[in-house]
């Protein structure tokens, strides 16, 4: 049976100076194509990031609409309703409202 050290030496020899592999003749053409498009590649957005961004935006819009609706519900008190009508407070601008909840 082969000694363990001999086996290791044999394994290490297996990678010694492998044969030269021929380069793909189209590699240069592909590199040139890459040169032309490398600028655009950097601007590409990964599908996962795009999905995450859309999901985040949907969540913000949903939260905004929910809060806007809950606040713009007509109040039960007729006096409050009268004030709202008198001062034209019935429409609340959502983006403004989003930052000023009081």
């Amino acid at each position, binding site marked *: 049976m082969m000694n363990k050290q001999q086996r290791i030496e044999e394994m290490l020899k297996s990678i010694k100076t492998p044969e030269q592999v021929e380069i793909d003749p189209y*590699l240069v053409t592909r590199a040139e194509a890459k040169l032309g498009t490398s600028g655009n590649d950097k601007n590409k957005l990964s599908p996962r990031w795009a999905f995450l961004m859309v999901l985040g935006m949907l969540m913000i819009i949903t939260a905004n609409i929910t809060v806007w609706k809950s606040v713009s519900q007509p109040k039960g008190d007729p006096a409050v309703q009268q004030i709202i009508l008198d001062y034209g407070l019935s429409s609340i601008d959502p983006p403004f409202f989003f930052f000023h909840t009081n």
Partner: protein
Amino acid sequence: MSEHQHRVFNTVLNMVQNLHDAEEITQDVFVDVYKQPDAYRGEAAVSTWLYRIAMNKCIDHLRGRQRRKWSIAGFFAGKPREEREFNHPGVAAENRENAAIVFKAMKQLQSKQYAAWVLSEMEDLSYKEISEIMNVSVSSVESLLFRARKNLKKILEKEI
């Protein structure tokens, strides 16, 4: 530049041990060279400079693969890269099984030891040439190779 393509490609292939990855990295090396031809300052031979770029790219590639496996950014970086299989057409068929084991063990070496080992054992370069490419002294190359061999033997002893 075309005269260096074959050499750079084979060095990269020896480093990453995968034909597809080697083609991609070789392309990247030449794209970088074409984009920044002024980066060559004439301090070393063109081949040494190209070797240096190629080695750095390979180390980044191998390190990046390790990082991507565990990072959150890796999750969002698009399709995760699978661990590439050993695919080196230059290794004789009868040696492929052993070479795959050695390459797996080599991945556990420190990057400098790894690079020195590939340049010495697979590229058959002299210590002086390796020291110029890696920008270290000849005695450092000797030390790196001594430690690489010792560590590889230790790892392989556990493997077999």
